[in-house]
């Protein structure tokens, strides 16, 4: 019934579009695309013109208008205004960390593309790992197209290679957090001024426990990745967590961790100054290469967990179609091109050949003479956002085996039992708000080791007062319903 209705609507919509297309064939439709990045590029107009010309040649009667907002609050604030005010636009970047996907879907901002996608962007859909499609669906419906890139997450150590080499440490034998202690000790004794273990509250080693945080990053209602009985737990009451905070405390008291770990959020500055020996990072193939380039410090990595796919991993970078779009089908067709057409994809990623880059071989590019990363007129620098990353060129010096490795990494990963489950916090939003607040005061100091583990019962009691049990019960209820429906 529901489907026939949708079908009818679809046919009607199609009719309208066709009618529109025939009557107004002359005027190309402007596809407006909002995304996050390093700000609007000076030469964006040139790229828009080239892209518009190209998609018209490909049969889409459209022009492209790109608008980039910067990192941090700006993208979120702008999109909140644009979406809430009902402004007309077609495509926007959405994810689990900026322009929040779940929130926008719950409010009805994005178009349900479950069926349209199959029809108008089939190739894009086919080339994605199936986990992407299940994981980014909410109640079985898709509202955004994930970018095709690495899928799983894997936690591990980042070590400063200079120091590892200097003291001839064999870090490969490290299997757990506790194993690293002997190395921290060496650094503490021999390298005054270097932080042995940068275990800050926002970039914390607690992530190595790799719980499936199904409710919110700051609410300790969790599942084990391999949960047999799908039981939602209070993370603070698990054995693993208790052991971890004891260890964190030990490291803190030994002076391995910065004294202000619970309050400092900026970690990159110290790393770049060579003042950090180790920290916990999310790893992926060729991570070392990328990080060495971005932080300027050579590194060694040691994986501590298995590559796992959780729901959140599938929603790290996506493009959604706005409900206010006047021509969603055209927008989808455009996204299909971005995801499958090598020329268009690289045009949006790297700009115009000869002006913003030159090819030095089939897939490898470099800056033209006189152009640098600093003065290039078009360098959004976010290839993980614009669709299919496997189509991207490589900058000179980058390892060209990367995409193969990504694919292998995705294949080797295991899926969390809850993959595809999305918690709807609306029924308990007051409790969630209160819990987030307790997290900041109570949990942040514990996981850095700045607070005595003896205070844990106290923190747990405060979470209970904030209504954590209600959140857990609600999560359990939703999860049970989801399990039943999906026969997991």
């Amino acid at each position, binding site marked *: 019934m529901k489907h026939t209705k949708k079908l009818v609507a679809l046919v009607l919509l199609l009719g309208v579009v066709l009618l529109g297309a025939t009557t107004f064939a002359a005027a190309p439709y402007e596809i407006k695309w909002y995304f996050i990045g*390093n*700000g*609007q590029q*000076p030469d964006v107009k040139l790229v828009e013109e080239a892209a518009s010309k190209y998609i018209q040649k490909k049969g889409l009667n459209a022009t492209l208008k790109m*608008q980039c907002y*910067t*990192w*941090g*609050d*700006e993208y979120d*604030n*702008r999109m*909140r*205004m644009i979406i*809430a*005010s009902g*402004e007309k636009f077609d495509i926007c970047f959405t*994810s689990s*960390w*900026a322009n929040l996907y779940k929130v926008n879907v719950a409010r009805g901002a994005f178009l349900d593309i479950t069926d349209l996608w199959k029809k108008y962007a089939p190739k894009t859909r086919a080339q994605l790992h199936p986990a992407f499609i299940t994981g980014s669906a909410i109640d079985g419906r898709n509202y955004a197209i994930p970018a095709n890139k690495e899928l799983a*997450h894997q936690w591990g150590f980042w070590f400063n290679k200079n120091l590892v080499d200097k003291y001839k440490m064999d870090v490969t034998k490290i299997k757990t957090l506790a194993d690293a202690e002997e190395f921290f000790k060496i650094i503490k004794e021999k390298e005054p*001024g270097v932080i042995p273990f940068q275990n800050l509250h*926002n*970039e914390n080693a607690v992530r190595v426990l790799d719980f499936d945080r199904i409710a919110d990053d700051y609410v300790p209602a969790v599942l084990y990745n391999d949960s047999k009985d799908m039981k939602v737990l209070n993370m603070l009451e698990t054995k693993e967590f208790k052991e971890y905070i004891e260890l964190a405390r030990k490291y803190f008291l030994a002076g391995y961790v910065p004294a202000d770990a619970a309050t400092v*959020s*900026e*970690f*990159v*500055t*110290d790393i*770049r*100054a060579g*003042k950090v020996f180790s920290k916990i*990072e*999310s790893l*992926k193939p060729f*991570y070392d290469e*990328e*990080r060495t*380039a*971005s*932080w*300027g410090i050579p590194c060694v990595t040691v994986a501590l967990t298995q590559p796992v796919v959780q729901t959140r991993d599938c929603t*790290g970078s996506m493009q959604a179609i706005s409900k206010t779009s006047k021509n969603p089908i055209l927008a989808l067709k455009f996204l299909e091109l971005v995801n499958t057409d090598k020329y268009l994809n690289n045009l949006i990623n790297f700009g115009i050949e000869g002006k913003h880059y030159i090819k030095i071989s089939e897939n490898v590019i470099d800056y033209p003479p006189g152009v640098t*990363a*600093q*003065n290039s007129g078009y*360098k959004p*620098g*976010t*290839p*993980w956002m614009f669709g299919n990353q496997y189509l991207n060129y490589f900058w000179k010096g980058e390892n060209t085996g990367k995409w193969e490795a990504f694919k292998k990494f995705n294949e080797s990963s295991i899926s969390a039992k809850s993959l595809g489950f999305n918690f709807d916090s609306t029924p308990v939003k007051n409790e969630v708000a209160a819990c987030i607040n307790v997290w900041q005061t109570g949990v942040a100091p514990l996981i850095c080791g700045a607070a005595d583990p003896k205070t844990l019962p106290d923190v747990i009691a405060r979470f209970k007062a904030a209504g954590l049990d209600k959140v857990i019960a609600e999560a359990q209820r939703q999860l049970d319903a989801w399990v039943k429906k999906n026969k997991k």
Partner: protein
Amino acid sequence: MGKEQTEFNRLSAVSAKTNAILNIILLGYALVCILPLVLVISVSLTDESTLALYGYRFFPKKFSIYAYEFIFSTGSQVVSAYGITILVTVLGTILSILIMALYAYPISRRDFKYKNFFTFFLIFTMLFNGGMVSTYLIGVNVLKLKDSIWGLIFPYLMNAFWVIILRTFFKTNIPDSLIEAARIDGAGEFTIFFRIVMPLALPGLATIALFATLQYWNDWFLAALYINDPKLVPLPYLLYQVQTSMQYLLQNSSNIGGMSGDILSKMPSEAARMAMVVIGVGPIVLTFPFFQKYLVKGLTVGAIKG
């Protein structure tokens, strides 16, 4: 004027001892306010790597102007942004002072029957607002402020707090008798306003004009709401964008992966943050004496009468 001023001071001055004590207190506090800015300037001129090792110092351990080069190289817009900011500040200050003074005067008049209503009408907007979304909606759809220079000016034309302050200045500094006398001489309300009220309230007007100038000069918020066109971006917004995205990239790694690489590896974060303050604040500090000129002039009622 200078002569009159000193003459008046000698007559009414405090004792030399009190004067010395007051000066010491004020100098002490002035230093508390100046030194942080000196520190900011010094840090902005320090080599980034020495900052991470030795922390902030009043004298750069290793001198470097790289932070400034970096800002000017990434934002080729800096110069045009200065232009926009100056235009907005000048236009905005003049207009807002005029509109606010015109509003403040009637509600300062004891004989104006509706003064309480209009005061309330004003105060109400200080407490209640429709929220960002609906304000944005009206701004874009009704007032057409999007990508318009007016988007940076219009919303700040009326500041309830300042209007009330101005009203109080008018009320306390301008005797009713003076207005009455002018009226008997046949002056219209507008003549009274421009010829008597405005000159007498000069210190108050200068103060509010200073506030308005600073607000227009420092504001990034309106640009973040209404401006997309790079040609209309004012300086504070440009700096705000660099600042917040820098902050974000230094605090988050897992979301955006290693792809932020190129910008991050060359970015002088600490020094750049301070250099942005210097670039943003520098020019406006120089306009200070201009406002102060009106602030100490203190026209007396006698001068007007005579």
